[in-house]
């Protein structure tokens, strides 16, 4: 039977059920297939609810054998949504399945949504969107270049390392010859460069790939390079080399002419293995945790066993432990750290970015996290298009590396509820944009590839968009002025501190009326306080005008007033003058909160049902879902709210 291309066509009387959203009864409507999205519009004239699924978000389409009521498709999405579609005609179902299977696996970048999506903005606005995150400004913020760390032109036009950015910081004493020599001795030419400079201790976090040492190889320039890294920290006489791989893996690499630093050859280094597993282990571990999330009505035993069996939290803990080790070395011991794994673009990116998150409160702000991801991931050549399957390619290259970093941030925010400016929603939004290809930010595998694709001319950056929506991404409990969040975070990494990230792996709440959320309540409270404060100031001004004397009988100043916008000071498109010393905390206004105030009563409807409902059975197909046992006594009692 020839396959008809279904693009631009529609199918009527389709039933759709989004189980991962806790939906119970399928809705009936029309399914459209556009070049970029699957769109479902409900028939119900009152709601006409629309469901849009970008093709790039679809990770798999599965067709079940036809039943008398029709044929069923299961759409699995990269953000862990699962959508069931029941199509009356088998023929339609076969065609849609085939079309979707093709559309969700684009072969060329030009097929991607972001390169065909043209929001109504002009050229200036597009360029401005790309200037929103300015890495040079972030380096200036952390105090480089300075007399220890300088920029190098070695990699201009990506000559030395094609997966590195062209702008790099290296120790002042590293000559171009040392840089080039070192890069020849490192896997993929990824020589040691600066990731983060800690102004308080002058210690630095550096990154590279594994040395090509084999069993006995050595390289003078590379040894000099590490010596230079050490010398760039005047207070110390050694550095840590953190190999984030399990020691066994690192040793096995020696047989392939790679490996790790021999402590006999490199003087003044201390080698530390952390034991983060490779991308293949992580990929299968995440699949297991997703399966745990999809279990219908697991017992507590099933659930905890599944959690243990997946190994997921163990891996998250290993990554956090790596970050903690680095942060402790830099902040507490004042020792610089050189981090690598194999190629230095997965585990290294994880360990460095977690360390930055722990070391510098700036990266715990909304804008700071954008800068951090842009620096440690985008600019340093994390292979986004391979890892997140933007194009049809080798499935073995796919792995949830950045998912794990976002989860580390989430686990930390659970442990330090007042230390992060952003909330869980922000992390989930970033997660979904990494996969969605709606914007150009995460396309390609390195800076050079992005330049060659001329992405900045054809697509937009995601960051300004997220920044625009920041009011919904803000954690109302965030405090800039409390001591623990001020400086270095020292998390507890005991196993009992880790939980399954329900918000990401279990989307029950997404399409529901908002749950009982203390965060929303507090945001309202905060907003209300601000308005009252303004009103009070106004009143008092009027009163002064009226009585002609200053008011002495009431103190207006509110203690512990928190500032929420000071992160704008740096890293913006128009950064302030460079400083070499500490951050200047300039005066800032409490402006920038234009989100309309919600009526408290409106923000607090009781949440609707929860995953109790997930217990209802789906094995027998969509149609059976509407028939639910109603009264007491049976085993599948459901608890929900009317």
């Amino acid at each position, binding site marked *: 039977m020839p396959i008809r291309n279904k693009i631009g066509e529609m199918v009527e009387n389709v039933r759709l059920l989004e189980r991962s959203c806790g939906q119970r009864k399928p809705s009936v409507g029309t399914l459209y297939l556009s070049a970029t999205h699957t769109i479902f519009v409900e028939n119900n004239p009152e709601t006409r609810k629309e469901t849009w699924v970008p093709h790039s978000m679809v990770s798999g389409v599965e067709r079940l054998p036809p039943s008398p009521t029709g044929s069923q498709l299961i759409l699995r999405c990269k953000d862990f949504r699962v959508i069931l579609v029941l199509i009356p005609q088998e023929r339609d179902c076969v065609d849609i399945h085939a079309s979707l299977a093709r559309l969700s696996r684009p072969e060329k970048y030009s097929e991607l949504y972001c390169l065909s999506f043209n929001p109504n903005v002009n050229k200036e606005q597009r360029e401005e969107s790309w200037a929103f995150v300015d890495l040079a400004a972030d380096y200036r913020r952390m105090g480089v270049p300075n007399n220890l760390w300088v920029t190098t032109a070695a990699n201009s036009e990506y000559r030395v390392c094609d997966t590195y950015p062209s702008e790099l910081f290296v120790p002042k004493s590293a000559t171009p010859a040392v840089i080039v020599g070192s890069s020849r001795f490192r896997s993929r030419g990824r020589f040691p460069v600066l990731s983060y400079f800690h102004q308080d201790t002058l210690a630095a976090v550096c990154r590279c790939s594994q040395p090509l040492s084999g069993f006995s190889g050595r390289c003078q320039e590379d040894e000099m390079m590490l010596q230079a890294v050490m010398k760039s920290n005047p207070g110390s006489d050694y550095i840590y080399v953190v190999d984030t791989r399990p020691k066994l893996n690192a040793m096995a690499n020696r047989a392939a002419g790679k490996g790790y630093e021999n402590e006999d050859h490199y003087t003044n280094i201390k080698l530390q293995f952390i034991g983060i597993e490779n991308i293949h282990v992580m990929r299968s571990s995440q699949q297991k945790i997703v399966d745990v999330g999809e279990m219908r*009505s697991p017992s507590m035993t099933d659930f905890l066993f599944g959690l243990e069996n997946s190994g997921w939290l163990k891996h998250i803990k290993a990554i956090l432990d790596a970050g903690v080790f680095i942060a402790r070395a830099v902040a507490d011991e004042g020792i610089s750290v050189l981090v690598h794994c194999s190629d230095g673009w997965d585990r290294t990116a994880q360990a460095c970015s977690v360390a930055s998150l722990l070391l510098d409160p700036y990266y715990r702000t909304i804008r700071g996290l954008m800068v951090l991801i842009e620096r440690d991931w985008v600019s340093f050549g994390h292979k986004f298009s391979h890892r997140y399957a933007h194009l049809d390619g080798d499935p073995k290259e796919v792995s949830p590396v950045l998912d794990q970093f976002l989860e580390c941030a989430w686990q930390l925010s659970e442990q330090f509820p007042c230390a992060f400016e952003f909330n869980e929603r922000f992390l989930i939004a970033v997660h979904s944009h990494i996969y969605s290809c709606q914007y150009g930010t995460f396309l390609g595998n390195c800076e050079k590839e992005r330049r060659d694709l001329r992405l900045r001319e054809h697509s937009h950056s995601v960051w300004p968009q997220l920044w625009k929506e920041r009011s919904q991404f803000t954690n109302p409990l965030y405090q800039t002025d409390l001591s623990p969040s001020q400086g270095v975070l020292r998390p507890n990494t005991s196993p009992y501190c880790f939980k399954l990230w329900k918000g990401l792996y279990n989307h029950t709440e997404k399409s529901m009326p908002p749950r009982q959320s203390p965060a929303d309540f507090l945001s309202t*409270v905060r907003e209300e306080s601000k308005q009252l404060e303004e009103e009070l100031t106004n009143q008092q001004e009027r009163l002064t005008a009226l009585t002609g004397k200053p008011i002495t009988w009431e103190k207006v100043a509110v203690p512990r007033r928190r500032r929420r916008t000071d992160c704008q000071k740096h890293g913006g498109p128009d950064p302030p003058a460079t400083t070499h010393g500490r951050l200047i905390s300039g005066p800032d206004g409490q402006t920038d909160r234009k989100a309309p105030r919600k009526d408290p009563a409106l923000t607090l409807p009781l949440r609707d049902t929860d995953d109790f409902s997930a217990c209802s059975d789906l094995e027998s197909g969509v149609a059976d879902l509407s028939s639910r046992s109603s009264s007491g006594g049976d085993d599948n009692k459901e*608890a929900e709210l009317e």
Partner: protein
Amino acid sequence: MEFSEHIRTANVEDVELRQPLQPAGRGTLCITGHHLLFSVRGDGGGRQLLLLLRSVDAVEKSVENLWGHSGFLSKTAHTDRTSGSSGTITIKCKDLRVLQLDIPGMEQCLNIAHSIETLSCLDRVSDMFPFFYRPVDLRLQGCWGLSSPEGHFSQAQELHQKWRLSSVNKDYLVCPSYPPALIVPACIDDKTLRKLAKFRQGGRFPVLCYYHRKNGMAIVRSSQPLMGANRKCCTEDEQLLEAVIEGSDKGYIIDTRSSQQAQQARMTGGGFESKSCYGRWKRLHRQMERGKALQESLIKLVEACGDESHNMDRWLSKLENSKWLSHVQTALSTAGLLAECVERDGHSVLVHGSEGTDCSLLISTLAQLIMDPRCRTLEGFLTLLEREWVQAGHPFQQRCAHSAYSHARVQQESPVFLLLLDCVWQLWRQFPLALGFSEALLLRLASEVYASDYGTFLCNSDQERCLLGVKEKTYCLFQALLRDRDLYSNPLYEPTELAIWPSVHPQSLQLWRGFFLRWTPQVRQLEEAQEEIRHMVMECARLALSVRDTAARPSENSS
């Protein structure tokens, strides 16, 4: 005082105290009949520890003789006094805190350990601290507790048509573990009650514990019927239950045992309501863990929380193996079932297990929190606890004699009340706005139930409390808690009339960190967040008030 015979050494100088979340301190240790007192030397009384000996669950001592380590002994003057030895006492408390005392002198150390061991588990209730507690700012007054069955009944006008208050148990003769006044169907007289009480274990005949105003349905609880191997019946019992569902087509019985367990109970004289005698009642069995198994579950969980291996697999497997979260899940889902029968299905329910003093109370309490907004305020919740646990005869004295660290053999101990608090915490976490009380209240209750200055959780029943004069000679905890409203109320509280249906999916249930990891630094961050929430809400209220005041001023001035 006879306590003095247990105290051979009352004071020790130069003791080092190590406790979680605080720097170690050196100072004087003092043992009294009810307390361990530690004051840091030269601190002007600033840093002190006053520990109720009753809250000590286990004492471990290790004594070492320092003569062996000659290099150690430069302080000869010191060793003369202590004969060169010292000891360490590890005190493990019922609130899961672990303290360590380094005491110079082996003999002193052993004496102190002995005193703590003996005085922490005195058997006689009248020797316990609540009978000695006399705060300066309070006076023992006539009214003890927040409510009485009589008061409860007279307030509930809607009950008066179908139900009545019976004083059949006024001398505790019909049922020793029930309070003197009980609410029963109006058409059942005291004579019938006396007869049918004999058909229920311990005389705990079915009584009303909750009336759902929305649809007039009731939750009734009791102990198991004494059906026995011969399948005995009791007409009066059937009459009473028939009266409960009068005007309705059926009722549900939620038995907190599996049907197999209920069958087996017949061999020991117990049993269940058979279909032939109670035709209009539909039985639902939900197996809930109780007794020793629950105590062991707690012990395993606490052990897992103390594991230092930093191994994720090990932790998850120990957590699973403890089964504590499974018990939380079962309790909440059984309570959900109960509430669903009443609220959704619109039928009355009888709840019982075997004795009717543990799991029945647990699920009836949770179901009331789910359905009834009046139970969710601070007063409402404490009143609910008083009615369903203290008055209804949960044997606190037996159940809470020891906690998770004790080396004593488990006898009657069982952390049913702690399981309740954990379940309530899960509700509180899932509905952060719907409950009027704070986590701090639940934590306070969790430690007070094991050791307290107040008399509320003393004894096993109302009868025992009356015999010992608890209500006259001790202070009431619930009243004290209400005086600390700022601390124990939930700043986010927004009353809702709707039922709060908890999710019992494993992903929605969490380990109660606030309690089980209370003494780890990590929990501090969470407490800080709670303080911040309180601060924000209060700040907003303060500003609103200022705005109102300021707005009022000009008119005052001009008038």
